[in-house]
């Protein structure tokens, strides 16, 4: 099979001449005489033309001898990193669903370095057709062993023949893909002799037809002659494929679900209109908060205030801190919220730090705090040292006895979970703690006006968080009130 034959009867999908090919030769392809790549190119080009998809076809060229496929195909093309064509194809196919994506790959590209990208795209059922050239070696780099090299086959890196004990057996790609649910069409063909090429043509056409009909993932594996690296004549290499390779890689269709697969729809266009984007990303302003002019002037916040909330995962530690931070946001404080993340979370502990300030906050990390909320004994043991000498400690009475504190420190206990359970929603325990805090701050730190605003901003924050669940808002407000009442009764 000489390259002259490829030129003959040229599809309109091919450039004429191949002007993107550098150098003086513009009339034929760069492949070696007798190479299968040229034949497969021709079949694909004919199919693209036949199904009328040239304008929207994206041809992804691999690293391998076919790296220069874009010299020949007059359709959108890109030469991509070794093995990554199905991932690039995924990006193209998802980003531009109106396009028809072809991933063209050799056996090193697909079955070695890029096997993960390939098999994952197949498993996702990406809308693409993969043409897989199995020539039993790495062509471009000079005939090294490929995953498809046959047992005992001699290559540059298996000079004593492929040893299945150390190199494993050849990878049967079609059979592996056939184990997956998503692929629509899987067939193995050979590019040897007229009869086989006619069958190959049918398979290529089927894969391109599926592409046109948006039918998901198709795979055509083509056993392909590489006479140069196999150091054989054209006749010898065809015989090698027909007698030896096909024994290991039997030809034929492994799956065709094209008929029962419905034609895929083009997904809806992305939302890009600015007004529509705003509507989907943001919430409407009315009904939440006092608007940007609302500030809180309480004197205790003239200084930066640091709060540590700690306990174990599932107690809502992070969200308690979050509500506090949100309240601060609504009053236009500078605020930071910093969780402990990762291993610290393991073993169930959870903590976060909240800083409120009227000035810029240098670091969100907290090593000393004005308020420590400790919901477990372990949390108190871990963070107790951080409490400032005049700090406030709130602890969970169900978790520990009243802890001893330094003379200037204030300590208050609350069974927040019990309060929340009484209200009928255990998840409201945080709000009971915040209610207790309202009572404490109201007694020791806030003017009556500021105390009223604290209650108000809590309501705003909770209403905003549970906008769509008015019942939850009410339960949280009830928990807040109950926490506040219970703490007030302790404080008299």
């Amino acid at each position, binding site marked *: 099979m000489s390259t002259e034959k490829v030129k003959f009867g040229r599809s309109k999908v091919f450039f004429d001449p191949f002007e993107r090919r550098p150098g003086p030769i513009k009339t034929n392809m760069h492949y070696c005489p007798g190479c299968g790549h040229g034949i497969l190119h021709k079949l694909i080009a004919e199919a693209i033309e036949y199904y009328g998809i040239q304008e929207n076809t994206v041809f992804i060229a691999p690293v391998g001898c076919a790296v220069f496929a874009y010299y020949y195909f007059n359709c959108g093309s890109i030469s991509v990193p070794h093995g990554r064509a199905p991932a690039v194809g995924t990006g193209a196919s998802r980003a531009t669903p109106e396009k028809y994506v072809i991933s063209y790959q050799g056996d090193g590209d697909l079955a070695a370095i890029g096997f993960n990208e390939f098999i994952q795209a197949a498993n996702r059922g990406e809308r693409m057709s993969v043409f897989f050239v199995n020539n039993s070696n790495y062509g471009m780099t000079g005939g090294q062993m490929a995953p498809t090299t046959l047992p005992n086959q001699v290559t540059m890196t298996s000079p004593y023949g492929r040893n299945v004990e150390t190199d494993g057996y050849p990878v049967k790609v079609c059979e592996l893909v056939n184990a997956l649910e998503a692929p629509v069409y899987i067939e193995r063909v050979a590019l040897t002799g007229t009869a086989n090429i006619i069958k190959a043509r049918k398979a290529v056409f089927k894969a391109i037809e599926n592409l046109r009909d948006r039918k998901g993932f198709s795979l055509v594996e083509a056993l392909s002659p590489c006479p140069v690296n196999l150091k054989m004549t054209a006749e010898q290499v065809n015989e090698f494929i027909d007698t030896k390779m096909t024994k290991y890689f039997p030809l034929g269709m492994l799956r065709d679900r094209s008929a029962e697969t419905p034609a895929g729809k083009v997904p809806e266009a992305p939302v890009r209109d600015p007004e529509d984007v705003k509507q989907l990303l943001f919430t409407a302003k009315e009904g939440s908060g006092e608007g940007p002019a609302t500030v809180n002037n309480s004197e205790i916040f003239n200084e930066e205030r640091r709060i540590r909330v700690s306990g174990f995962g599932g107690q809502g530690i992070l969200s308690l801190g979050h509500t506090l931070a949100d309240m601060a*946001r609504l009053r236009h404080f500078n605020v930071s*919220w910093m969780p402990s993340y990762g291993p610290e979370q393991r073993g169930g502990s959870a903590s976060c730090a909240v800083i409120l300030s009227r000035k810029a906050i240098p670091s969100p990390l907290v090593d000393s705090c004005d308020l420590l909320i400790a919901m477990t004994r372990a949390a108190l043991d871990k963070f107790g040292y951080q409490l400032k000498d005049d700090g406030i400690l709130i602890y969970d009475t169900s978790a520990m006895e009243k802890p001893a504190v330094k003379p200037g420190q204030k300590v208050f206990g609350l069974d927040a979970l019990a309060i929340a359970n009484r209200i009928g929603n255990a998840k409201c325990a945080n709000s009971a703690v915040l209610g207790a805090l309202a009572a404490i701050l109201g007694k020791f730190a806030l003017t009556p006006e500021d105390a009223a605003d604290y209650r108000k901003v809590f309501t705003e924050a909770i209403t905003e968080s549970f906008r769509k669940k008015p019942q939850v808002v009410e339960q949280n407000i009830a928990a807040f009130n109950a926490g506040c009442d219970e703490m007030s009764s302790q404080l008299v």
Partner: protein
Amino acid sequence: MQYNQRLLLKGNEAAVYGALLAGCDCFFGYPITPASEVAHTAARLFPKLKRTFIQAESEIGAINMVIGAVASGRRAMTGSSGLGISLKQEGVSYLAAYEMPAVIIDVTRGGPGLGNIGPEQADYFQLVKGGGHGSYHCLVLTPNSVQEMCDFTVKAFDLAEKYRMPAYVMADGVIGQMMESVQLPDPRPYTYDPEWKMGRIVDGKANYITSIYMEYDDLEALNRRLQAKYREIERAEQCAEEFMTEDAELVIAAYGICSRIAKGAVSELRAQGIKAGLIRPQMVFPFPTNSFEKLLSNGKAKVVMSLEMSAGQMIEDVKLALNCKLPVELFNRMGGNVPSCAEVCEAAKRIYKEYVK
């Protein structure tokens, strides 16, 4: 209609909002702490706007999906941390060679190896100096607040498109994980349709994209063009905050979370009578050499202290910018430790004593 655009967000979340508001169509990612909320938020919000989110099979898969989407003429991004970024380097080198824009969020963590998930700034070399093969650079923006996570992501798209090259937003575990209030900008009208996208028909021929140049002269020409672009970026796009540097005798250089701590330390040192200042690179490629040259021309500075959460990576660029005309000392923490303000002040005083008085 009026909307609440002032939200309390994590840095990781704010970056995704910024991307959506900048008109990004596709997100491809792979989970990794401390960057996971980037993927979580993208998984939630991209489909809400009927845009594309895919959890890729790996960081290699993700960056190559970005290549596919960008080549198709769409804005696309990915996000990861340290070791995941290491895996993306092959793809980033291709993006540089293709001259295609893309945005990559790196919420850095401790290394080398698996390291840990604590905050470090040890990805500086791989982001700023190339990281992959070939003579290329990426734009590297270094936010130090949640607001900047959003704003710099928007800017990263702008610069990446202006110069047709990949842009990193390099945050650290603290900036990514912390929450602050953010004023989100309005979404941009969408007009993106790059003339170079693959498949666009020009004179009857479909555009192609490649990074292989068999003729040595052709590849050299590409490299010369890239270098000219990088020099132009160094001329036009430097970006740094200078804080009390005019009369400073000791200047701290710091970016990301370190720069916030440094700023606190500068105020503290000033209160103690030490003339300290801060240069905070908001981008580290291009490196803000002008800010450092200014120190030389105004002649007040006696020493520069590079404050880093790495073994000292940015310090090399600080020294280059100063052309060895001022001493440069390192103060660093590693392994996930964040320097405290007290530590920084103490180190600064020690250095001040040695070089100033």
